[in-house]
């Protein structure tokens, strides 16, 4: 394991059940040989860290059969994060912060309410991104008023994070302009750089019949391919899912409003009804422990019941 103080992390792992160690370089390759191959041998690497991913909170959704605690679930998630023994370095929200509405004022009200609720998080650094419910009907106009840019980058302890917008164009398109921006950014990164892409929709064709794709996502993946250590975290599909495209790992997160069925498992996609015998089943958040030297990400799924 890494240099990180493990105690808090191990406790977190106990809360959530399964831990997935995900790496853009494979699950079993470890140690100095890998560091050497990646050009990190002998280099000073920042300490490992962890961050929390929350997704698809759909604030404003109403549907008692799907989630009778629609107004309480996000607040509960905030409590869970605030209760973590070791606080994360930062938090990311991978889109669909709010549930869509045609009414511009209601949209803004929902965004304001969401912002107030997540303002209760103890962790001062929170990175937001939009989902199609937030941004597709007005090209991200209201979203940007509340949460800032739709695409941006930030760096943290040796990892380069790229936030991609594949929702403000209602056709689920990243677009030529953003692609050029991405390519220019990647040019500044060494081939062995640790890169994490955060976005809402899957960049690969997970299940296009259900809108689970990005129309020009393959162009994004092509641009990322020359880099050896790329991992993508996204939302949109309201369930945990892991897939590789070449050496690039893609991990989707659960929702904090309602779960959706597995890709193509039913004729028509629809939210999975609330299970009164297991409240909040299928909902959750996750911790992602970045082991920077090994370019690995330990994913710990957490539910809302503390178990």
């Amino acid at each position, binding site marked *: 394991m890494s240099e990180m103080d493990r105690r808090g992390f191990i406790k977190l792992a106990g809360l959530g059940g399964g831990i997935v160690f995900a790496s853009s370089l494979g699950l079993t390759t470890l140690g100095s040989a890998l560091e050497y191959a990646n050009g990190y041998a002998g280099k000073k690497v920042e300490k490992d860290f962890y961050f929390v991913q929350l997704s698809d909170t759909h604030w404003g959704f109403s549907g008692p059969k799907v989630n009778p605690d629609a107004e309480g679930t996000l607040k509960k998630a905030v409590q869970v994060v605030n209760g973590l023994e070791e606080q994360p370095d930062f938090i990311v929200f991978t889109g669909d912060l709010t549930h*869509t*509405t045609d009414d511009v004022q209601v949209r803004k009200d929902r965004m304001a309410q969401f912002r107030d609720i997540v303002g209760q998080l103890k962790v001062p650094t929170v990175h937001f991104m939009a989902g199609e419910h937030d941004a597709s*009907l007005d090209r991200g106009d209201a979203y940007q008023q509340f949460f800032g840019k739709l695409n941006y980058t930030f760096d943290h302890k040796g990892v380069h994070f790229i936030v991609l917008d594949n929702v403000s164009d*209602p*056709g689920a398109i990243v677009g030529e302009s953003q692609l050029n921006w991405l390519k220019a950014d990647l040019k500044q990164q060494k081939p062995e750089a640790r890169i994490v892409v955060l976005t809402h929709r899957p960049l690969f064709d997970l299940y*296009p019949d259900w*809108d689970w794709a990005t129309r020009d996502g393959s162009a994004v993946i092509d641009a990322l391919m020359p880099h050896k250590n790329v991992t993508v975290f996204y939302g949109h599909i309201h369930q945990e899912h892991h897939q590789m495209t070449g050496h690039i790992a893609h991990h989707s997160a659960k929702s904090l409003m309602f779960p959706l069925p597995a890709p193509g498992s039913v004729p028509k*996609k629809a939210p999975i009804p609330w299970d009164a015998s297991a409240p909040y089943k299928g909902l959750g958040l996750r911790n992602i422990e970045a082991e920077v030297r090994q370019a690995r990400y330990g994913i710990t799924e957490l539910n809302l019941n503390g178990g």
Partner: protein
Amino acid sequence: MHRKKRDLIAGALVISATIISALALHVRAYALPAEREIHITAKKFEFAPETITLKKGEPVVLVISSQDRKHGFNLRAFGIRADVNPGGTARIGFTPNKTGKFNFSCDVFCGEGHEDMTGTIVVTE
């Protein structure tokens, strides 16, 4: 001599006219069976008709219009997609080359019921 030449020219003209007429008829006959147009309207959050039955091998033109905002039409099984803008019409010609039931959907996010905006094309022998 001159008369014979005239007759030959006249004969040639008649034959040419006949050939041209025949060609024209042929072209007309070829163009006449216009492709059947299937009119589809898109609006929040449905296509009408929702189910369309076609015959394998029969060329058709899908004529899709929007009654409110921008929608998309995506029939992935046949590699067909188009944007459908309000006030505009998308025309897509294609010939189904396989039988079965094939879903189409709106692939431009259009609001809360966007995900319900689907339909089926049934292709029979």
